[in-house]
Structures are given as structure tokens and as C-alpha cells.
């Protein structure tokens, strides 16, 4: 039973990682969005598993919220915003590191996160054991996407990956901190996405582009 449960946890973690890789490996905006939606669905599934394993019913609410907000509302908002844009933005033209290389780097980041987490005591808590490195890897991959990509949209997606990682992380470690704070975090994220959408809109209006390369006026050299 124990090992069985552990296998489920590990496999679901792996699926989540693969979903994350999907975001790294795609170029078009709609592809990311779909990958993100897919990742969010997996995430809510994972959350449900955590709920099942721990038996805390609040986690199911969180899973539901995730499903609704992350896989439906946020993609909707983003598509709504981008539909209104009148410029060519759909393709990430030239990331700093090529797609191939970024996949490999992401893999290295996963390894790195396993290495870094090793010393944390898991206390035989299998959920933590399975998901902590995965969530950590998600942070790093999200950060890497942010570093690597050159359009404003893909940075938003990078941010979203980090948020997903965060969510998983919080779930895995704390099994739901407290509902109030969870909601607070969710609201923050939502508002954040809203604000970034406004900014997105403004950037495209003002700069006629979503390339962050245009946002280099403020510098010291």
C-alpha cells in the first residue's frame, strides 16, 4: 500500500513536470496557454491526490479553486487581453537560449532541485518526499522561462509557472495553511495577473510590441 501510494505520488509529480516541460518546449503563445491549462489541470489533480492522502477536506476546495481559476479564468483573461491586441505577438521569436537547449537546462534544473532539497528532513512524509523537489523544479523552470524568454506574454507565463509551483509547494508542505491565507494568496495572484494584463495592454499600445527588448530605456550605460 505504502509503496503503491508512493508510486502514485511520484508518477503524478512526473506528469506535472512533463506538463511544465511542455511550456518550456513550445513557442507559440496559444501553445503555452494550452500547456499551462493542461499543467493546471494536472496540478488540481495532484492537489486532489494530496487531499485524498491526507484526508483534509479543505484541500479539495483548493483543488476545485485551482481548477476553476487556473485552468479556466486565467487562460480566459489572457486570451481576452491578447485578442484585443492588434500586433503580431503570437510567436516567441528568439529566446536567448534555443528551445532544445532550454529543455536540457530545465532537466538540469530539475536535477539541481533534487540535489538542493536532499538535506531537508522528510520525516517519511511521502507527499513532501514526492512533491517538494517537483515544486522546487517548477520554481527554477519558471524562473528560467522568465530569464530566457523575450516577450512580455511569455514572462507572464513564467510567472504563472512559478505560482503553480508555489501552490503545489504550499499544498505539499502544509496541507493547506489556512483557508483565509490561501484565499489571500489566490486573490493576490489574480490581481497580479489582472494588473499584468493591464500592463500588457499598455505596453503593446505604447511600444507597438510585446518584446521586452523594447523595455530597455531605463538603464545606466
Amino acid at each position: 500500500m505504502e509503496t503503491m501510494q508512493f508510486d502514485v505520488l511520484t508518477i503524478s509529480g512526473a506528469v506535472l513536470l512533463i506538463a511544465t516541460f511542455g511550456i518550456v518546449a513550445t513557442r507559440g503563445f496559444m501553445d503555452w496557454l494550452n500547456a499551462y491549462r493542461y499543467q493546471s489541470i494536472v496540478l488540481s489533480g495532484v492537489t486532489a491526490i494530496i487531499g485524498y492522502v491526507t484526508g483534509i477536506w479543505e484541500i479539495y476546495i483548493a483543488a476545485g479553486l485551482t481548477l476553476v481559476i487556473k485552468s479556466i479564468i486565467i487562460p480566459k483573461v489572457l486570451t481576452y487581453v491578447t485578442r484585443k491586441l492588434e500586433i503580431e505577438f503570437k510567436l516567441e521569436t528568439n529566446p536567448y537560449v534555443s528551445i532544445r537547449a532550454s529543455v536540457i537546462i530545465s532537466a538540469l534544473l530539475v536535477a539541481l532541485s533534487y540535489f538542493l532539497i536532499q538535506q531537508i528532513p522528510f520525516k517519511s512524509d511521502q507527499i513532501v518526499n514526492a512533491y517538494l523537489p517537483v515544486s522546487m523544479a517548477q520554481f527554477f523552470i519558471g524562473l528560467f522561462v522568465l530569464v530566457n524568454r523575450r516577450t512580455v506574454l511569455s514572462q507572464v507565463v513564467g510567472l504563472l509557472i512559478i505560482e503553480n509551483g508555489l501552490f503545489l509547494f504550499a499544498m505539499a508542505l502544509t496541507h493547506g495553511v489556512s483557508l483565509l491565507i490561501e484565499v489571500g494568496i489566490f486573490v493576490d495572484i489574480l490581481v497580479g495577473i489582472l494588473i499584468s494584463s493591464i500592463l500588457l495592454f499598455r505596453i503593446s499600445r505604447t511600444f507597438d510590441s510585446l518584446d521586452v527588448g523594447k523595455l530597455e530605456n531605463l538603464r545606466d550605460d
Partner: protein
Amino acid sequence: MDSLISNLTILFLLLPPIVGAGLVTVLKKKRTIGIITICTASLILVQVLLLVSKIVSEKTITAFGNTFYVDSLSAVILLSVSVVGFVAALYSKNYMGRQYDNGTVDDKHIVRYYQGFNVFLLTMLVVPIANNLGIMWVTVEATTLVSVLLIMLYFKENAIEAAWKYLIIATVGLSFALIGTVFFYYANINANTSEDAMNWTGMVHDAKHFDPNLVKIAFVFILVGFGTKAGLAPMHTWLPDAHSEAPTPVSAILSGVLLNCAFYGIIRFHIVSSASIGPEFSSQLLIILAVVSIGIAAASIYFQKDMKRMLAYSSVEHMGLISLGIGFGGLFGIYGAILQIVNHAMAKPLMFFASGSVNQKYEAKAMSKIKGIIRVMPVTGILFLIGGLALVGMPPFNVFLSEFMILSSGFKSGQFIATSLVILFLVITFAVFLRHLLKMIFGNPLSEMKKGEMGKLAIIPMAILCSLVVIFGIFIPAQLQTLIHNASTIISGGGFA
């Protein structure tokens, strides 16, 4: 049981900005909303002063069942928030009025500005009094979001760019802070399944039983996370952009107190970490980042062309100094660091206000176009000069004392290399900062400049700050001394060796 009184105190403290924001939304009259905001800010100031005097005598106040917890450390931050909020509200009236007359902003912008201003104050008031670290994180994140809105108030190119960078970097950073927070929480529930595992008081209480490795990793995340928001190098990169592009009163708040609020987070976790694994680990990291910050700030100021960017880098330097003081530890180091928080909160807004007035007068932000301020606007010029001298740590102004204490503690704690480096950097900062400043203040103005100040309402907030800067250089009220001393005791984990 005075928990009702405590609850009411906290409630009334948080009420004015909420009501203020509501009123601003409803009334929408340019003149009235400015005055309303001044009223809210002064109400807050009065309440905070009362609260602080209470804290001095009672040390701690808890409210709403441990959700809110005010101790001396919080009180120091609250004090800086309320004072700077008040003067910024005063200054806003004049500043936004002029912006309106210029045609830079319209009525809609002003309403949005004052809404944002009130909400911003609210969020910053919650940060230091939240006992629940989750709530603290949420409010810190909320400050980011509100301030992003304030920065991109007029949708100018640079403002949008700055807002974007700020948003992304701060959000990324804060998500690491959340990771750290959750790690600490995890450590706490692993050590002890107490009720208030997410509360700071609970964490400090059980910190001895935390797993050391976990605490170390958690603190790294906290440091990088809140450090990003607090402007510690090399995560400071958003700071010069955001601070220079925001409307001046907002820059003042960002630099003067928001950074403190973020740093407050680091301090809280530093206390927990010290209680758990001893102060060496976190101190070491703080010192490293501090030295890097001060060095980078020193080097960056040299090439600055924009006045407000220069001030922003000076904020990086000062956050570095605060972090250095906390890192060095000892009574002098910690006391100095807290004093530095207070002092910086006075001097930096003063500088921002003065630079705002100068910008409006000269219609330029580039320092090369600004000359002879002291001839054109003598009062502002002198205030600007005093602020600048205070910032670079010249006696008899306030920052000197805190810097002196911090550096002394550096030698005392045996951190010779770090301290020597910092002294070198401070001398460099002194040179490069004053070089820019004096070139603006002295010299001959362009002939077509018309003499004249920017109006009383612009001078008064600066004069208030300036008198504080001067007074605190030679005299610190006994109550504040006690407060800071208590706060230092909290940070050092009770008592000094």
C-alpha cells in the same frame, strides 16, 4: 482584559485609509480628496503616536486573537510609515496640483492616485502589525500591486517599463519569500504542532526545535525574496527604475518606508533563524548582501544622470547599511540599524520631495540641466543640501550616528574585511553623491530661470522632515530611545552579551 481595547486600537488604526479610499472614490473632487487624504494620514499619524507610546510602556499588544501583534519593532516601522505617509500626503496636494496645472494629469488620474495612496498606506500599515506571517506576505505582495498601479499612473513609456520590471521582479522575488515562509511554517509544524504555527510569536517560541538545515534553506529563500523587495543587491535592479518613474510622493514612500516594510520581513525571520540555529548563519548572509549592495550603489551613483535614480541607488546603499547593522549584531549594530531605518525614512523622503520640486521648477530630471538651485529656490536648495549631507552620513545630521554605530559594531564583531570595504564604499558614495548634488545646488543657474519656491505646501513637509533630520542628529527623545532599545532587544533575542 483589554483585548477589546487592543482590537479597537488596531481597527481604528486601519479604518482611516479604508474610509479615505472610499471617500475619494465617492467624492472625486480634486481639492477635497487631497484634503481627505491629508486627514487620513494625520489621523493615522496621531493613532500611531498613541500606539507607540502605549508600546513603550506595555511592550506588546495583540489583537484579534493573535492575528495582529505589535511590539517595539513593529512600532518603529509603523512610526516611519505614518510619518512619511503624513508628509507625503501633504506634499501630494501641492505636487499633484502642479502636475494638474501642467496638464500632465487629469481628474481621473488624480482620483486614481489618491485611491491608490490610501490603499497603499493601508497595506503598509498591516505589514508590520501582522502576526500571521502569511498575512504579512499577502500584504507585502499587495503593496507591490498597489504601488505598481501608482507608478504607472500616467502611462508614460518609462513609467510603464518601470512598472513592468517592478511587477515581474517583485512578484518573482516575493514568491520566493512565500516559499521561505512556508518552509518556516513546515519547520514549525514538524517541530511542534502548536495552534499558531504560522504566527511569528509561535515560531519564535518553538524555534529551538527547528531542523537546522531546513531553517538555512528557508532563510535563503526569505533573504532572496524579501531582499528583492527591500532592494538588496543584486536583486535591486528594479529599484532605480521604479523609484525614479513614480510620482514624487510615491517615490518618497517607496524609498522611505516600503523598503523598510520589506526589510522588516527579513528581520522577523532573522530573529526566528537566530533563535533556531544561532545568529551566525543569517548574519553572514546579511553581511555579504549588504557589502555587495553598498558597493554596487557606490559604483552606480557615479554615472547617474537622473536625480531620482541617484536617490534610488542611495536607498540601495542605505538598505545595505541596515542589513549590515543587523548582520553585525551586538547592541550597537542592531540599535544602529533600527536607528538607520528611522533616519533613512526621514532623510530620503526629504530628498525626494526636494528633487520633485526641483524637477517641477527646472522641468528636467537630468542633473546636467540643473544648476544653482540655491539661487533659484534658496529654501528648497538648503533643505536639499541638508538632506543630501545627512544621507551621506555627515554630522551633525542623524544618519551619522547610526552609521557610526553600525561601523563600530562591525569592528567590534571582528568583521574587519567587511567593515573596511564598507568604509571604503561609503567614502566613494560620499564623493560621487555629493559631486552630483553640489553641482546642482551651487553654481550659476541658467539666466532665464525665474526665482521662487514651489509654494508653502511643498516647503512644509520638507521643513518637517528637515527639522527631524537635524534634531535627531543631536537629540533623540527618550521614548523613542526606549522603543529602539526594546526593538534591538527583540532582534538580538533578548539581552546583549
